[in-house]
């Protein structure tokens, strides 16, 4: 049997290569008073974001991601802990003295100023010379493709254009880090996808650290170098998009990022780094485990829907090395490129299976069909390794 591959992918940027991280949290904690009760929005968090990294804070609403970002910007002061920017303690430095800039969810453009005046606002505060301002504003407007829009007021622009103005207004100051608070939330799907690519391009061009807050896992996966998945004030997992997708550290991460099938079971035996969980005589799940796992232990195993093969008859012998679960199809949803099945399995859990509509398009299973799900051992992932 093959040994499980634990090193799926290295993060694209080494977390902290040399020198100071762009942003660092040391034991940062934030309490809120809500109706006389103390609520922890962010709990004792350590975090280091590298220079030039595209870093995402991902989580459902109320998970503390926005509070985390606002503590970086200086709009919230932590209840405990220290915030470092570029190695300097800025915990008690007000927002207007911090060398980071933010793109607000609502864009927060100055409605009484035109595009040029909006973008020049930060430079004017820094007492940059008129000619220099003119040059830099022109430069940044070109990067965000808004040349010629200088005289427009925010009201006369589309959502996408306002978004670019907000981006330019922040970037023109050449901040240590750019903070983006769900910046694409208000745009329609097509524009959002376009802006995702654009944002990535801009980040490469200017080479500034981006901290991106989002609840959209797809957005985080496609754009980020690293992602911190947050839930209830805690970072549940921090890693590259691949690590987070392929090797979720917690049940929450497995469920929040993409679709996961999660199955519980007791270890029957361990053999060559693989644990066997069996449900009936032929229904079993095989999962790579560390050496410390002993028979009798309870495990949570996550399997991605696209890794599973669906067979209408008894599975071929080649698949017998891995997991096999029999079940009944309860739902079939045709998606064009793929078909999604919901299968009630012998393991007790409902499984979601994505079946590519490659060549077996006429081989679709129907509701009520008896099917077998199989997948290779390395596609089972024990949660919490």
């Amino acid at each position, binding site marked *: 049997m093959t040994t499980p591959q634990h090193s799926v992918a290295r993060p694209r940027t080494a977390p902290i290569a040399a020198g100071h991280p762009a942003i660092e949290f040391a034991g940062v904690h934030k309490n809120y008073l809500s109706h006389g009760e103390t609520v922890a929005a962010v709990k004792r968090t350590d975090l280091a974001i590298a220079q030039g990294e595209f870093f995402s804070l991902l989580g459902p609403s109320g998970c503390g991601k926005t509070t985390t970002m606002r503590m970086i*910007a*200086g*709009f919230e002061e932590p209840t405990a802990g220290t915030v470092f920017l570029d190695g300097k303690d800025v915990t008690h430095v*007000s*927002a*207007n*003295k911090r060398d*980071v*800039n*933010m793109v*607000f*969810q*609502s864009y*927060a*453009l*100055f*409605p*009484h100023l035109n595009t040029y005046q909006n973008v020049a*606002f*930060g430079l004017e*505060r*820094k007492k940059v010379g008129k000619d220099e301002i003119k040059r830099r504003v022109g430069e940044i407007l070109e990067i965000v493709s808004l040349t010629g829009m200088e005289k427009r*007021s925010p*009201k*006369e622009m589309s959502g996408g254009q306002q978004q670019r103005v907000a981006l330019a*207004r*922040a970037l023109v*100051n050449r901040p240590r880090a750019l903070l983006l608070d769900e910046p694409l939330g208000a745009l329609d799907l097509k524009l959002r996808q376009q802006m995702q690519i654009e944002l990535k391009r801009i980040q490469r061009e200017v080479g500034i650290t981006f901290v991106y807050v989002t609840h959209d896992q797809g957005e985080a996966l496609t754009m980020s170098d690293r992602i911190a998945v947050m839930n209830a004030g805690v970072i549940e997992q921090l890693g590259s998009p691949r690590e987070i997708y392929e090797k979720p550290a917690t049940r929450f991460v497995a469920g929040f990022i993409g679709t996961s099938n999660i199955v519980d079971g007791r270890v029957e035996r361990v053999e060559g780094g693989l644990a066997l969980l069996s449900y009936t005589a032929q229904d079993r799940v095989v999962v790579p485990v560390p050496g410390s796992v002993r028979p009798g232990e309870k495990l949570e195993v996550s399997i991605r829907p696209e890794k599973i093969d669906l067979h209408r008859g008894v599975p071929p012998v080649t698949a017998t090395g891995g997991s096999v679960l029999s079940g009944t199809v309860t739902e079939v949803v045709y998606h064009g490129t793929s078909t999604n099945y919901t299968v009630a399995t012998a393991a007790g859990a409902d499984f979601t299976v994505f079946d590519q509509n490659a060549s077996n398009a006429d081989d679709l299973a129907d509701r009520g069909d008896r099917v077998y799900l199989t997948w290779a051992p390395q596609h089972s992932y024990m949660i919490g390794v």
Partner: protein
Amino acid sequence: MTASTLERTAPAAEPAVKPRRRLTGAGFMRAYVWVIIAWLVLPIAVMILFGFNDTPGRYNQSWVGFTFKWYARLFELSNLTQALINSLLIAVVSSVLSAALGTGIGYALGRYRFRGAGSLNLVMFATISSPELIMGASLLTLFASLQVGLGAVTITIAHVMFSISFVATVVRARVMTLDRSVEEAAADLGATPWVTFWKVTFPLILPAVFSGVLLAFALSIDDFIVTNFTAGTTETFPLFIWGATRIGIPPQVNVMGTLIFAAGVLFAVIANVRSRKATKKD
């Protein structure tokens, strides 16, 4: 078959009924609107008209003939002219003062939650709703007990006192609709709180401050009750008119009233056009 027949007959039946119903309804509404407009405008029209009345004596109550002479002899009565000057000065000073103070209060109430905000709201509402007679009498008692000489200064203090709440209420309403993140954006871009206020917040609440000033000016220039208590020997435009009723109101009063009204209309039109321009941009 049945469905298509129904479809064909229905539109044919409709025009016969609908226009008549619409006409009676619309006719009534139109008449109603004109009655209301007449009700509001008639007294003002009478005032303007009698400014052109070629009346021989002091009595200006019956129409004699048309003339422009009162406009030419507008400043002939030195007492009246002085009263008007007093009123204008007091109105300008008190509206500017209450704008400055009321904007601060309105901003604080609209933006922050603080200890005493509730009672401040209550006090403001009380000054707006309390009868002027009571305010005037109590102000007189206050000034008398402090042994402050009555005059233009005490009138101004009194006017600021009742105008502040109006300005603060208007400004507060505007501040509450402002997107908080716009000010945060200014801070984020390096603006100090002071710069943020003057470069971002103030331009955005300026329309509200402007209407607050107009309101305070209008309240001040025609105030009689509170002014009467706090004036001492100083005479304002409304006090002069009150005094003149017994011996006949000179036509110059109508002319001045007309001019003040015209200025008010002018400001209202300007404000209206400006806000229409602003909404058009939306």
